[in-house]
């Protein structure tokens, strides 16, 4: 019975807890305020990716507000879809219901983008995704969906081109991680490699597999010249370790999901020599990027992760367009859609512009390589593969 009384006693404490956590988040003050929403996985299994993006956006908004020359205030609204398509419509509706939301960054994942883009289209609210890379999203006629990232076709093709053209691999194992992203990327890589006359073995290793040693054995038993891993760094880390243990000595390559400093942290020296493609330009050398990384770490006590910088760019780009519209009189949802469609913006990671379907125009893929403790820029795949 002891516990029952404790539960009774706990009620006043719980009330205290609500009082403590409930407060915070004051008013933003007077003047015009526009809200930018982010739709992505802010809880659930893929929360880390959502958090990377959210932090990038928050940082952009804070910096823009702190700049002081906007003439208005930007506010951040999180909408959580848990990375699941069925939660996405409700999440989108939340952003739409709030009338001062003028733009949405996201949906972060392709599945949710597929269900939410229609709702955003009907509401005339722009949905600018910096990470949903499934190619067919821009072909479905979603009116306000813009993609601020090259789709999987570009990156998969880049991987295939480099492996067949430069490495001259004859046999490649392509491994996906059974996510939307991984499968899309691996499909394109597989198709293009086969088209270039390379023998391809396709394998799948679902995310969060408890033991990667069997998967590594499966790769090495095929004796490939090269490996393409289409997935995120959380899984590429242990996979790289086990590949090294299994004695894999071919060329290992992965995409932008792995192009992250944490990959090196997780894989240790097993990550040495991995090739990483990315639609992002040489980010490590520019001062602006360094400053971004430093600011980010200071603010959130962790290093920027996959898509942090891309989301930062997307937010900055939207804020810039809002600013232009604001100076011209007022910001409306539809006007912002049109403005963004026509916009050109040079961000940390790449230059942004869209074609008439809302697809990202700049489809250049760049190559990086893990060397020691860092990821080094190699050049654009087109130039390298000749």
């Amino acid at each position, binding site marked *: 019975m*002891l*516990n*029952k*009384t*404790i*539960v009774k*006693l*706990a009620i*006043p*404490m719980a009330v*205290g*807890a*609500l009082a*403590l*956590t*409930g407060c915070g988040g004051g008013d933003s003050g007077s003047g015009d305020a526009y809200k930018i929403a982010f739709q992505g996985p*802010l*809880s659930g299994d893929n*929360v880390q990716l959502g*958090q990377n993006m959210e932090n990038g956006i928050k940082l952009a908004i804070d910096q823009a507000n702190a700049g002081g020359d906007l003439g208005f205030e930007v506010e951040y609204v*999180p909408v*959580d879809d848990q*990375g*699941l*398509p*069925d*939660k996405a*419509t*409700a999440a989108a*509706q*939340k952003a*739409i*219901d709030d009338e001062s939301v003028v733009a949405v960054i996201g949906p972060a994942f392709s*599945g949710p983008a*597929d*269900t939410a883009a*229609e*709702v955003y289209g*009907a509401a005339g609210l722009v949905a600018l995704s910096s990470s949903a890379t*499934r190619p067919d999203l821009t072909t479905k006629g979603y009116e306000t969906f813009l993609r601020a990232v090259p789709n999987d076709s570009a990156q998969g093709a880049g991987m295939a081109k480099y492996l067949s053209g430069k490495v001259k691999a004859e046999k490649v194992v392509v491994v996906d991680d*059974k*996510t*939307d992203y991984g*499968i*899309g990327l691996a499909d394109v890589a597989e198709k293009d490699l086969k088209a270039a006359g390379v023998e391809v073995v396709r394998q*799948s290793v*679902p995310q969060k597999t408890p033991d990667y040693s069997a998967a590594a054995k499966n790769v090495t038993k095929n004796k490939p010249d090269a490996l393409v891993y289409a997935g995120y760094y959380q899984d590429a880390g242990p996979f790289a370790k086990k590949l090294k243990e299994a004695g894999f000595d071919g060329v290992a390559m992965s995409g932008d999901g792995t192009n992250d400093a944490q990959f090196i942290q997780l894989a240790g020296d097993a990550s040495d020599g991995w090739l990483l493609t990315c639609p992002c330009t040489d980010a490590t050398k520019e001062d602006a990027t360094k400053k971004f990384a430093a600011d980010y*770490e200071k603010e*959130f*006590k*962790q*290093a920027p992760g996959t898509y942090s910088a891309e989301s930062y760019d997307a937010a900055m780009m939207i804020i810039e367009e809002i600013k232009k519209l604001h100076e011209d009189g007022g910001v409306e949802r539809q006007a912002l859609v049109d403005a963004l469609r026509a916009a050109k913006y040079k961000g940390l990671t790449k230059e942004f512009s869209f074609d008439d379907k809302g697809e990202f125009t700049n489809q250049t893929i760049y190559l990086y390589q893990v060397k020691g403790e860092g990821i080094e820029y190699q050049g654009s795949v087109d130039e390298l593969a000749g």
Partner: protein
Amino acid sequence: MSIKTSSAEGAGQDSPSTTAPLSAAARLRRVRWYQEPRWRRLGALLALAVTLRLMTGEEGTTQDLFLALREDFTGVGLWVWLAIAVAVWAVREFLADQTSSAVEGTKKVSAGPLERVRQVWSADKRVRMGVLTAVLALVVFGPLGVERYWQQVLVDQIAIFVLLAIGLNVVIGWAGLLDLGFIAFFAIGAYSAAYWTGSLPVQPPVALNNFLVLPIAVLTCLVAGVILGAPTLRLRGDYLAIVTLGFHEIVYLMAKNADGVTEGARGVKVDRFSIDLGFFSYEWKLDPMPYYWLLVVFIVLAIFLFLRLEHSKVGRAWTAIREDEVAAAATGVPTVRYKLMAFAIGASTSGVAGVAYASKVGYFNPENFAILLSILVLAYVIFGGMGSIPGVLFGAAFLVWLPEYLREWVDPKDRYMYLGALLVIMMIYRPQGVLPSRRRKRELRMAEAGVGGADATGPAEGRQP
């Protein structure tokens, strides 16, 4: 070890060293100061305070593993929580008389009117019908007044899960079968909808309207339920649980891996509901409310059918099986057939929910049928009060709504932490659920008094310490 006789033996050896030798019994009976209830309560409250501090404290990062722990244990917050804990404890211990009399007072005041309401409720059938009609009207038209966001949540999540919970209630609440793979049938329903509307890579013989898929999905799930159930239903409670869990995992992985048939992780796009009768046609589009009314029709229909079943021979047979399977079999109840029936009925309800779900969201992938959902639906049913339709309705609606609502109050990442804590507290406080059925309440009371097990999934005779 804790065998008391042995410590008594030990007492004999130790006694020379103690100045005032105690008898073995006295030693056993002696209560040290920290074993007194009062101090144990203080200890528990302080532990609770530390836990609450961790729950509401700093967000950790992988960059610096110790950050959150360091902040939580050095900051002012911990002392605030500890102070609250000590204050609550002091009030409870030293002002117990005053507070308890106040509580009793309010109880007495509220007991009078409540009792009268209960009498009126049980005496007059018209009152019951009137209230039910009013509730139904509120359910049907009430949501028109809320934000569109909540309408979406109501359809996509609450209504669908209410339908699922009603189905699972038949399996677990009435027949007492522990099914941890319920969402598998939900997936089968959704994929049936995709197949028969021609949205999968494999084409059906004839492409059908979503409404026509409903009976087919019911049939498919019925068959799937029987196929799974027939060989496994002779397994006892816990074994059945793991087999159904395995079945779920197999269905989920099939959906995920059989790319050529199910599109795998890429997901499937499905047409929405539409009616075309020539003279009348209607299409369900983006507005959530039409789906809501459709789902309410499904739910009301399911409740109506299941209530008829519960009060029929079938329902009584289920109760008999749940309370004592051996006795039921001995008195001539064909237990396997009735268990199979419950299983199949639950499965087909889940299938209907699957079709409705697929035709509402328009796009789904295997992640929508993760194993966690099977476990969650089970929690909804037990939380509300298994075996009781109002309880199950409330349980599902409340527990689906709560995490959405918590979003505004706590970090969305932590919502399920609070949900988990709530489940634990609820089960300690009200193991029978929020609105239990009368029979279930009696079964639990009997179990507490040590007369028989509460159900087939309850404690075996004489096992429970």
